[in-house]
């Protein structure tokens, strides 16, 4: 189509009628500032061309001036399909649509309302309207020619019919319409069965068929399981029948075995009872025999024991007599020993008392000697302490001078002396010899001078003289070092004086003297201390010595009180007392030993006497016991003999005979008893239990078989097989139907996709020329001829680059380059359309990212393109398009 004029009213900022145009067939520029309404003009035009007049969508309402309820009205005059047309459209209130055709010099209405809208879409090659408002995707090829402001710079999706058409035209593939329809029909039929992704169409025939198959399979499985259960029951029933028959035979056998064993067990039991009786008889006979034997042996033993006791009683009597004879001698010996013991004990006590008194006297004498010695020691210590105290008092008057300090003072004194000599040698020396007696003021001190006598004046560096009648003379030496020596000299003098003063000394000589005296006194005090320490001995000090002396005196007094010495005792020395004590102690020791020995003798005599007494008494008692025992034995003999009427030997022979008979009866019973008699009861019990178990098992199996029988009778009438047969038939049909539909679906897909695959392959073969075309346009726009554009077989752009290896994906290109590439694409489509029908390219501020250099290239390209395609540029950058094409007039 070519746009000629456009009029708007009640649209956006245009409340009144506004006329845009006329549009030239070539390049048109609508350059207005921002907010003027350029995009609104574009939107209104597209809404008028593509939306239903009756639409009340929000997009339509948004066309109205803000805050107004005006009805948007648009009139467009355009040429299309060889005719000149006028569209008059009014939305919302008073909605209307009219399509008029220029014929015979006047507008002639061809259609109105829905028909007008539909006719218009046909003229524009747009898809049939289904909703009231449409998206650009349904604009037909115009969706690729009319670039909207703020549209993302994305490569178009070649979707829908318009996408197919664009691809076909761009790739110059002459697609067979018949094939398109064929593929559409195949796809349509396939879509009823499978989705595009190959899944079953929900509620489609195949899904329903498969659901039916699944249902029937489930039903069949259930029936088969039931059938199998019945079969299993049949088999179990047969098995049980067979097992029960075998069990019956087993039961009979077991019962017979049990009966036979029971019979054997009863016989064995009888013999066992007989054996029991005979065993008891034998045992009793044996016991009787043994009893007789024991009695006979006892009788003989008792006789022997009684004889032995008689002999023992005679021995005991002899012993008692012998002991009785020893007793008087033993009593005499004891009395003698007791007397000697009493005498020895008395002597011993006297000697011990004498020894105690002698020891008390010795302690008193020792204490007296110790107290006396301590008193002497105390007097010596006090004298030594006095001497030492005097020496120490003299030493305290002298300063304590360390050798180091004294040495320091000696050094200072030498420094003073040496510096004074240096000053004297290096300092000023003025000799004044007045002609007549005079007084000279030297450094402020007047000094008389005798006439004619030279007086030497000295100073370290300077000297000021005032002479009467003459004035003041200042004499100054140039030697600086004298000053420094003087300073040293003065510092040494000052320090020595100060330190001596602090020590209370006048001079260094006094110090030297004091140090010598102190050394001498220190020398004296040392032996005094040693002597004092020796005198103190073990005592810590004089006070301790004094206390010890006091204690010793008290101890002496205490011992005196205890010992109470008489005059003779007082005359005896400690050594005398000690010698007497040792002698007496030795004597007392001997007496004590003698007393102990006598005591032991008494004890021995007493023990011998007691032993003899006990032996005599025991012998008498033993005689009595033996007599009693002998009497008892004789009584027992009498009793044993009284048990048997005849002789004991005859009784033994009778018992022996009874035992032999009982033994023979038992042997016969044992011979009759079966060898495994003891096992027979258990075997019989086991056989009975086994028979009972078999009975129980047979009962259980019979019960189980009856259960099976009931179940089988119930199931037998269910007709499971017939149900299975019917289900199988239905299932077969359902499976076939599902297979048929699946085959149909796969066949449809196979056919359709095979065609599409070849179609794509065909497109791929012609991509080269298209890539060449777009690459050339891009080179023209960007000024970079070395770059190429690459597509895939779906005409989607893969990227731009010098080669496939250097391909830059479209999305990674700059926004400006993408705009230019899209412009190239739009131009290519427009040129394709223009081969059949005038084409109109609208660019609503879509080249805003293009730089100034490329802008010129773009303008060159657009001018060339406008020779074949109508171009409408909506821009707010009038300067960029100045001098290009026709500036569109806007008339209000």
């Amino acid at each position, binding site marked *: 189509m070519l746009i000629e004029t456009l009029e708007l009213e009640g649209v956006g900022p245009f409340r009144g009628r506004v006329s845009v145009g006329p549009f030239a067939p070539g390049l048109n520029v609508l350059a207005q500032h921002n907010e003027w309404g350029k995009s609104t003009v574009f939107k209104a035009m597209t809404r008028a061309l593509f939306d239903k007049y009756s639409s009340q969508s929000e997009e339509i309402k948004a066309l109205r001036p803000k805050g107004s309820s005006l009805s948007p009205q648009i009139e467009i005059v355009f040429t299309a399909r060889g005719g000149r047309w006028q569209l008059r459209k009014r939305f919302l209130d008073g909605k209307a649509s009219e399509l008029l055709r220029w014929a015979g010099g006047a507008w002639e209405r061809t259609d109105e309302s829905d028909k007008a809208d539909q006719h218009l879409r046909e003229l524009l090659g747009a898809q049939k309207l289904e909703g009231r408002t449409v998206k650009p995707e349904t604009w037909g090829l115009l969706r690729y020619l009319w670039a909207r402001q703020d549209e993302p710079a994305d490569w178009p999706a070649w979707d829908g019919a318009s996408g197919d058409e664009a691809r076909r035209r761009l790739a110059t593939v002459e697609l067979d319409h*018949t094939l398109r329809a064929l593929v559409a029909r195949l796809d349509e039929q396939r879509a009823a069965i499978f989705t595009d992704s190959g899944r079953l169409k929900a509620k489609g025939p195949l899904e329903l068929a498969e659901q039916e198959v699944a249902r029937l399979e489930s039903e069949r499985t259930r029936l088969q399981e039931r059938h199998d259960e019945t079969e299993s029951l049949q088999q179990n029933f*047969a098995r049980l029948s067979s097992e029960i028959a075998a069990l019956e035979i087993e039961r009979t056998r077991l019962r017979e075995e049990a009966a036979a064993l029971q019979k054997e067990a009863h016989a064995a039991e009888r013999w066992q009872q007989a054996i029991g009786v005979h065993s008891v008889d034998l045992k009793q006979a044996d016991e009787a025999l043994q009893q007789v034997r024991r009695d006979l042996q006892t009788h003989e033993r008792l006789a022997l024991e009684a004889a032995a006791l008689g002999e023992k009683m005679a021995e005991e009597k002899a012993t008692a007599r012998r002991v009785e004879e020893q007793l008087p001698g033993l009593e005499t010996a004891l009395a003698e020993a007791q007397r000697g013991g009493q005498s020895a004990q008395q002597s011993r006590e006297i000697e011990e008392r004498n020894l105690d008194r002698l020891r008390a006297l010795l302690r008193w004498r020792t204490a007296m000697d110790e107290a006396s010695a301590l008193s002497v020691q105390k007097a010596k210590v006090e004298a030594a302490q006095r001497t030492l105290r005097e020496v120490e008092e003299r030493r305290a008057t002298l300063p304590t001078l360390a050798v180091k300090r004294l040495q320091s003072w000696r050094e200072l004194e030498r420094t003073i002396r040496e510096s004074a000599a240096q000053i004297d040698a290096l300092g000023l020396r003025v000799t004044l010899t007045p002609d007549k007696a005079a007084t000279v003021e030297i450094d402020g001190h007047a000094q008389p001078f005798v006439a004619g006598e030279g007086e030497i004046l000295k100073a370290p560096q300077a000297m000021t003289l005032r002479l009467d009648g003459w004035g003041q003379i200042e004499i100054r030496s140039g030697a600086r070092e004298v000053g420094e020596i003087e300073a040293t000299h003065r510092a040494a003098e000052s320090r020595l004086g100060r330190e001596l003063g602090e020590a209370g000394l006048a001079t260094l000589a006094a110090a030297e003297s004091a140090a010598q005296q102190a050394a001498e006194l220190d020398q004296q005090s040392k032996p005094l201390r040693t002597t004092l320490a020796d005198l103190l001995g073990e005592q810590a000090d004089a006070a301790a010595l004094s206390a010890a002396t006091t204690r010793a005196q008290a101890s002496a007094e205490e011992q005196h009180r205890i010992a109470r010495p008489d005059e003779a005792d007082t005359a005896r020395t400690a050594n005398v007392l000690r010698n007497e004590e040792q002698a007496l102690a030795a004597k007392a020791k001997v007496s004590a030993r003698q007393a102990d020995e006598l005591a032991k003798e008494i004890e021995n005599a007493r023990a011998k006497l007691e032993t003899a007494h006990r032996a005599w008494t025991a012998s008498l008692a033993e005689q009595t016991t033996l007599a009693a025992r002998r009497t008892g034995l004789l009584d027992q003999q009498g009793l044993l003999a009284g048990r048997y009427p005849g002789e004991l030997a005859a009784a033994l022979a009778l018992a022996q005979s009874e035992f032999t008979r009982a033994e023979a009866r038992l042997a016969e019973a044992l011979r009759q008893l079966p060898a495994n008699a003891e096992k027979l009861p258990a075997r019989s019990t086991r056989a009975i239990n086994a028979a009972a178990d078999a009975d129980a098992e047979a009962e259980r199996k019979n019960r189980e078989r009856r259960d099976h029988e009931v179940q*089988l009778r119930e199931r*037998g009438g269910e007709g499971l097989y017939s149900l299975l*047969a019917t289900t199988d038939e239905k299932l077969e049909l359902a499976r076939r139907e599902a297979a048929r539909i699946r085959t149909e679906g796969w066949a*449809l897909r*196979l*056919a359709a996709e095979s065609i599409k695959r070849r179609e794509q392959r065909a497109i791929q073969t012609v991509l080269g020329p298209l890539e060449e075309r777009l690459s050339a346009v891009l080179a023209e726009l960007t000024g970079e001829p070395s770059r190429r554009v690459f597509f895939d077989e779906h005409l989607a752009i893969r990227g731009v680059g010098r080669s496939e290896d250097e391909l830059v994906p479209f999305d990674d290109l700059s926004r400006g380059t993408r705009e230019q590439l899209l412009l190239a694409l739009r131009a290519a489509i427009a040129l394709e359309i223009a081969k059949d029908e005038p084409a109109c390219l609208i660019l609503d501020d879509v080249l805003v990212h293009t730089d100034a250099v490329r802008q010129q290239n773009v303008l060159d390209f657009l001018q060339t393109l406008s020779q074949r395609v109508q171009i409408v540029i909506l821009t707010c950058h009038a300067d960029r398009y100045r001098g290009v094409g026709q500036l569109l007039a806007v008339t209000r």
Partner: protein
Amino acid sequence: MKLIHSADWQIGMRFRQFGAKAEVLRAARLRTLQRGLEHAATVFADAFLIAGDLFEDNQVDAAVVRAVFDLFAEFSDVPIFILPGNHDPVDGPGCLWRRAPFAQLPVHVTIFQKASAIEVAGGWLIANPLSQKKSTVDPSLKIAELAATLPADAIKIGLTHGSPAIESQHQPDDFPIALDAATRAGLDYLAIGHWHGALALDGGRLLMPGTPEQTKFDEANAGAVQEVEIAVHGVVPKVTPVRVGELMWHSWTFDVGNADAAKASLAQSLGAVAAESVVVRVALQGEASPEAVASARAWLETELAPCLIAQIEDHSTLVLTAAELADLQSRHPLVAEVLAELRDLSAGRLSAADLQTLSAQTGVPFEGLTESVAEYAQRVLLRELREVVNAC
């Protein structure tokens, strides 16, 4: 002594391949049984023997069992002797022989529920029924054992069910019967059942009668009962097959590439049979255009309509005439290419790798790229193309 020897009636048999038509086939078997009984009554047979597998299964529907029982009751003058076979063994209280209505038998019906010998028309009928589905024991051995206890000069007829032990034709656990079982047991005739085709062995004394009503297309020598006459003991029985089968099963081919001749042949075949009792399967073969195949199918559907059951199986290969192919290639070369590829696929000329590629490109699963799918795809492609062209 005259016997009607039958076996393998398989009443209640499945015919799953026929779907809803299966019921027709099942009903036919009952009518066939009726015809057999009628014949027995007509010839005053001394016994109507059923040598196993009267029923397809022990759990057939009670209504079916009742129908058979009622049929037997109608022929009260025909002594009927039923031997349970491996399909309907005497295997417990649930088996149909021990429940109503067979639990209470009319006097002319005998069911052998255990091996036994009974006197029939002066001779002896010695039967050994099956009580399980499989066995490696020859069921005729028991008959021989029982026969040895009977008078030597009496006519002795054995009755059991199993497979003649023909090398490579029987399974060891399928009740093998020695090929000389009749003479070995001193029988005049051993009536057996199991296989569905008639077969005579042991010098004509051992006979498999075949199923009286065919059950599938490839069964030969079926559709009859055997009329057996035994004059005296020791004489070889006279056996005459009597056709009682209602349905004829035919499997024919139709060459779509030579449609006229095929039509003529098929019309002749159809003319030779009673269509209302025919179960027919026609396999389309050869190469032809879609139109020719469609035309053939349409013709067949019309011609086969009177048949009781007709199945058409299309194994034909779709081809275009040279002119059609040239036209297609010039007008729609792309479709021609696709058709060529589909033809290769249907002819099995594509390698596994080709099929993998095709599957990946078309989205049709590998297992879906079958010859039948390819055939169908060719047809649908041409059909839809025709529709589109006509619409244009």
